[in-house]
């Protein structure tokens, strides 16, 4: 049973094969109460962004990232009941992901409602933090091909540079 493989016909990523035991199990998400099982798939080769692909609603996928990649002082006050719901004593036992929204050349992170994952049990939930300390739309810098320590932009990659040429198409 645990070796069963789930095939997800994702409208965004094509067919994905994931061992059923590796799927993350949510109690549903706000806006998508029927989306309970998700596969976490790497998006880029450095592991900054990942895809969270629904096994229940093949047209549903989110881009996610570790929020501390972009917001080093992120300090979500996760309520005790959310920890208990994932069989965790503290946030240290859980993986934290933020949903990213891509709009043209702009990226926003939802820091008000992070995803919590228990890596051992694969159970997960989206916790809605109390208060308004953290935004649902925290802008972050777009990926830059010209960061320090990076190779200078390679040949022929102008189409992936949001900052080049001013307006977007």
């Amino acid at each position, binding site marked *: 049973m645990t070796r069963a493989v789930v095939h997800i016909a994702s*409208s*965004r990523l094509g067919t994905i094969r994931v061992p059923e035991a590796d799927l993350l199990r949510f*109690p549903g*998400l*706000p*806006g*998508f109460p029927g989306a309970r099982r998700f596969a976490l798939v790497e*998006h*880029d*080769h*450095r592991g*900054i*962004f990942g*895809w969270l692909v629904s096994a229940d609603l093949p047209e*549903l*996928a*989110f*881009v996610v990232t570790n929020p*501390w*990649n*972009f917001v*080093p002082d992120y300090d979500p006050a996760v309520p005790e*009941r959310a920890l*208990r*719901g994932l069989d965790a004593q503290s946030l240290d036992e859980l993986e934290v992901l933020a*949903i*990213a*929204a*891509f*709009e*043209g*050349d*702009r*990226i926003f992170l*939802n820091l*008000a*409602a992070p995803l919590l994952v228990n890596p051992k049990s694969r159970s997960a*939930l*989206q916790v*809605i933090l109390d208060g308004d300390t953290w935004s*649902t*739309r925290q802008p*972050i*810098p*777009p*990926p*830059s*091909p010209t*960061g320090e*320590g*990076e*190779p200078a*932009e390679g*040949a*022929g*990659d102008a189409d*992936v*540079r*949001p900052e080049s040429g001013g307006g*977007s198409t």
Partner: protein
Amino acid sequence: MLVLSRKPGESVRIDGRIKVTVVSATSRHVRLAIEAPDEVEIHREEVYQRIARANREAARAASGSGEALSAARGEGGDAMPREGGPP
């Protein structure tokens, strides 16, 4: 939809495991006490709807092909976020 009348101090029981008690009521405010298992998510409706909207917008954006998303993958070149995130 079920509509019930309750006085302060009275409760309703939902699904055998959720108890909602009216703590106090005025003409403008009702205070509710909710007892439920940990796995039951409880939110003010407008807060829940704000997150639901954010999720729907993020899902819609992910189904498109934003420039930044393509850049994050490094499509067509070595266009990646810096190691260690933003400056």
